[in-house]
């Protein structure tokens, strides 16, 4: 067809915002349609969604609880994605962190209770970091594509966990693949008792700040941004891409591992295969939506967390399935990314046809 996209020279702020606005409006519209298809009352659905998300104090705190892991994974994604390092292994790194922290917990005795938070945090970070290190080395030494190695490791770790949960980590005598309930002394301290907002939320916020500081203020962050923006110029000026990528993957994996350890010791208290209902994937979407910016990722993560949380009430009140929100999240990503492209480009009739 004799039309094609041509990049505009200057994109006004207004145009960009308008594009985002249209995208959000479209998502709302489609959501309304889906709600209608579910046979529910549209206003009631939106109202209950809102209520469940931030309608009262309890809802708000629950939203924060739900946001904690996805804020961490989105920051992990931001850190790597800024260097165009496609760490698709956040799910696996999350589990690796949880597993490593759990292993330390399970293999040690007589640790004073006050030390546990430190162990959990370190354990989570190291576990995830190891799983980030592997793709890094594979890329540096063997040029193995980061996307592939990280995805493959997701599965390897999942099966490894399954194996452990079925054998040495299993609750003795139980039919289910799960560990015993974690001792209370190892639980992450709570900030608020009811609902159980745990320290992990603060850790997540701190991590968001850390990623921001790393990217903006550190030498290493400079290098990540440089190879992400212009790998060729970075090569010309002596920046060691292989080393930068490896370190980025270790850090990114570490933050994701932190998410796993914190979720385990802060909220779930029992290690099972379903520790993460897709936190890693959601984190990646949030990172893309936030334009790979660590600060914008915070409200973006809160937004996703609010939707997730509110959907529960929406289902109870109006019967609209919670999975609506999963659809909505994907749609928002498509629409916003697509709208920005459309804002940046314009349609042009081409003079000739092939």
């Amino acid at each position, binding site marked *: *067809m004799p039309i094609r*996209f041509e990049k505009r020279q200057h994109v006004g702020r207004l145009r960009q915002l308008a594009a985002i606005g249209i995208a959000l409006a479209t998502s709302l519209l489609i959501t309304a349609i*889906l709600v209608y*298809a*579910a*046979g529910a009352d549209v206003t009631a659905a939106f109202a209950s969604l809102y209520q469940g998300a931030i309608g009262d104090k309890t809802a708000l705190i629950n939203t924060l609880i739900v946001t904690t892991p996805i804020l961490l994974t989105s920051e992990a994604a931001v850190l790597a994605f800024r260097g165009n390092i*496609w760490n*698709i292994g956040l799910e696996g790194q999350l589990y690796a962190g949880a597993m490593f922290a759990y292993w330390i917990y399970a293999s040690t005795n007589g640790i004073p209770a006050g030390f546990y938070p430190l162990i959990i945090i370190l354990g989570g970070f190291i576990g995830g970091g190891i799983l980030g290190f592997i793709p890094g080395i*594979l890329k540096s030494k*063997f*040029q*193995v*594509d980061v*996307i*592939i*190695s990280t*995805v*493959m*490791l997701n*599965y*390897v770790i999942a*099966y*490894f966990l*399954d*194996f452990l949960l*079925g*054998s040495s980590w299993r609750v003795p005598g139980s039919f289910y693949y799960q560990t015993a309930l974690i001792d209370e002394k190892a639980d992450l301290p709570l900030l608020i008792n009811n609902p159980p907002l745990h320290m992990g939320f603060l850790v997540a916020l701190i991590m968001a700040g850390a990623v921001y500081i790393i990217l903006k203020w550190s030498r290493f962050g400079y290098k990540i941004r440089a190879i992400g923006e212009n790998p060729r110029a970075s090569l010309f000026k002596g920046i060691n891409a292989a080393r930068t990528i490896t370190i980025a993957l270790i850090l990114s994996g570490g933050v994701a591992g932190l998410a796993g350890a914190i979720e385990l010791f802060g909220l779930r208290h029992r290690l099972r295969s379903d520790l993460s209902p*897709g936190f890693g*994937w*959601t984190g*990646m*979407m949030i990172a*893309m939506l936030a334009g790979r910016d660590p600060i914008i990722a915070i409200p973006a993560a809160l937004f996703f967390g609010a939707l997730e949380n509110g959907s529960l009430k929406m289902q109870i009140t109006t019967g609209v*399935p919670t*999975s*609506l*929100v*999963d*659809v*909505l*999240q*994907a*749609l928002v*990503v*498509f629409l916003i*990314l*697509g709208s920005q*492209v*459309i804002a940046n480009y314009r349609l042009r009739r081409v003079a000739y046809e*092939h």
Partner: protein
Amino acid sequence: MNINAFLQTAILINILASTLRISTPLLLASMGELVTERSGVWNMGCEGTVLMGAFTSFLVTNKTGSLIMGTLAAIVAGGLMGLIMVTLATTLKLDQTVIGMTLNLFASGLTVFWYTIAFKVGGAQSYPSIATAEVVKIPFLSKIPFIGEVFFSQKLLTYFAFLLVPAIWYLLYRTWLGLEIRSLGEYPRAVDMRGLHVNRLQYFSVLFGGMLVGLAGSFLTLGSSDLFIPNMSAGRGWLAIVIIIAGNWQPYRILLVTLIFAFLDALQLQIQGVGVQFPYQFLLALPYIFAILVMMSSRARSNAPGWLSTPYNRED
């Protein structure tokens, strides 16, 4: 472990027949994704497409009672997923990895949502089943002892999947269209400079690939399970991507790799069933470890389409 029991023919037949059955969706998905990838698009949404195929075929078959309608629905669903992919990747030039991942999440959410609202009996959730496809015994051939039971007593889609391999080989290597598709994936500029329609080729390849991947999904419901379970694609779409890599983007190698992986899967099922104490998870993890090892050897990557996952701009 009782070797005798294990080697009993019945068990062996079971394993081999299962191998072919398990290969079916993998072959369909990897053949479809192969065409897409040979045209230069890396559709990471393969997993989601399989899931959409499984769901739509289940839904339509349940509502219409017709297996054929269900199969067609899966093909259409797969094509639509491919359409989204190629539009966003080729025309809007968004990053293919991001599109793929989002497609997966989209499919995951949409299928659960749609299932929930489509199957309600008097306000309560129901979990219907469908009548799955029958085994189609090839006359005469299926009577051959051992071989007949393994090879010629499969479902229709299985026969189709295996016949698809030489068909795709022929398409890619012996037809004009195949030459153009492969050239597009290697060096789009060459295709453009010879006056061919780059966009048309791209759209066709990804759509065609998507349809086959959707078809793969239909086998999971219409051909195997009579239920639909959330995320029942269970990594098969990703496995297809792995298989393509391990098979070095060549149809017959992909067939071989698929059979190996399917065999391992059939084997571990048997082991689980027999109750042997063996970390079957290791067998399940093998394909993925194997894929990494393959990627580490530089010879293996030699056949990846040269322009895979990179959008083409005429001005570059």
